[in-house]
């Protein structure tokens, strides 16, 4: 194996050492697969930085280290709204390794956890402290540096946030699509609606047309049906071994409507 592994004490050290030929190893679920297949050569950099595995909760935000695994999310009572998302990322053995940071960079169709972060309007904090809305980060992630933490706003009430994953192997198989919806309410109307899809683009992506239908509306079955009908406007889902673009386009609205109905 033409691979050289470097272990650094902090993520900052890794960022400085990365260069153009290095690959960062987080949990390893995606990178080690490439190493095993002989598809990845050159330098692999990793860190034992304990700051990456910290979770700090406050009243309205959780700050989650990029190295926090899905299993650690599931063990955190304060993050109960994220438990259904973490549970959907692979089986028990994957969840002890799959990280929040890895989900942010995972290529289609992986990275379901990032779908939830996108719907919640998370902010991504890079090494060095720069903060970016996750929407901007996902657009630029090929040029983004390493991620240190993610700041995740907490839904004001439990029913304001929901997640759904469609997969052939339930619940932990690879996504045909995934959906996260955040519908904050204000005096009976929806305000600040965010809906995100996974596996419907090259990265997690929002559903702007559906959001527009719901924004400011009083939620009822009619509004939900119109949002579902608008679900895939402006989206260009990929075709792969799991599902065709046509199939994803056909079923996305159906699953969105079912998810929204659960939230009424």
């Amino acid at each position: 194996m033409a691979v050289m592994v470097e272990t650094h004490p902090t993520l900052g050290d890794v960022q400085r050492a990365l260069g153009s030929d290095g690959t960062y190893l987080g949990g390893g679920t995606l990178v080690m697969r490439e190493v095993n297949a002989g598809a990845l050569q050159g330098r692999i950099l990793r860190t034992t930085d304990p700051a990456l595995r910290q979770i700090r909760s406050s009243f309205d935000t959780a700050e989650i280290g990029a190295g926090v695994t899905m299993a650690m999310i599931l063990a955190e009572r304060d993050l109960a709204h994220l438990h259904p998302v973490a549970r959907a990322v692979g089986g028990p053995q994957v969840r002890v390794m799959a990280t929040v940071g890895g989900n942010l960079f995972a290529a289609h169709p992986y990275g379901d956890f990032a779908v939830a972060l996108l719907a919640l309007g998370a902010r991504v904090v890079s090494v060095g402290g720069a903060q970016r809305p996750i929407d901007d980060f996902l657009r630029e992630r090929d040029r983004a540096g390493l991620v240190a933490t993610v700041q995740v706003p907490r839904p004001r009430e439990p029913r304001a946030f929901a997640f759904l994953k469609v997969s052939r192997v339930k619940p932990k198989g690879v996504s045909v699509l995934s959906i996260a919806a955040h519908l904050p309410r204000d005096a009976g109307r929806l305000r600040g609606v965010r809906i995100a899809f996974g596996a419907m683009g090259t990265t997690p992506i929002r559903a702007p047309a559906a959001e527009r239908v719901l924004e400011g509306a009083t939620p009822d079955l009619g509004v939900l049906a119109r949002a579902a009908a608008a679900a895939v406007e402006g989206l260009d889902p990929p075709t792969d071994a799991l599902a065709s673009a046509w199939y994803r386009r056909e079923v996305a609205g159906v699953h969105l409507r079912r998810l929204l109905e659960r939230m009424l």
Partner: protein
Amino acid sequence: MAMKPVTFTLNAEAKAAFTEDGQNLLDFLRRGVGDLSPKYGCGQGTCGACTVLVDGEPHLSCLVLAEAIQGRRVETTAGLGQARPNPLQEAFMERFAAQCGYCTPGMLMSAKALLDRNPRPSREEVIEAIAGNLCRCTGYEPIIAAILDVAEGRIRA
């Protein structure tokens, strides 16, 4: 090719061995240490045949970088029932919960991780615990029944 020393505990015994850069834990255990009980299945984290416990948690050893287990506690199927089968192994035999046996080491370790943490799991919890392990032969029901036999005390040490 760089070689790095790794010291860790394997089935309660202190071990030291050298790992090649980029070597995964499965290859390290099998070729480096001589523990052949974890099996190579897919090499991409899908089948669960290579499941081992690292600090008590189930891991896919094919996706773990070997040097990452420096100072940690690894358990494999070779550590179960040294003198005679342990209750899980006994239950698997009683229930005919293996046929080709290729998935069995991974299944046993996933089951052990569950029972160590939750000695009396429900059927649903058992199913969830082995969700990362594929079995070609048994259709899973005998495996689930075997694990429940241990959980419900029908098979004991």
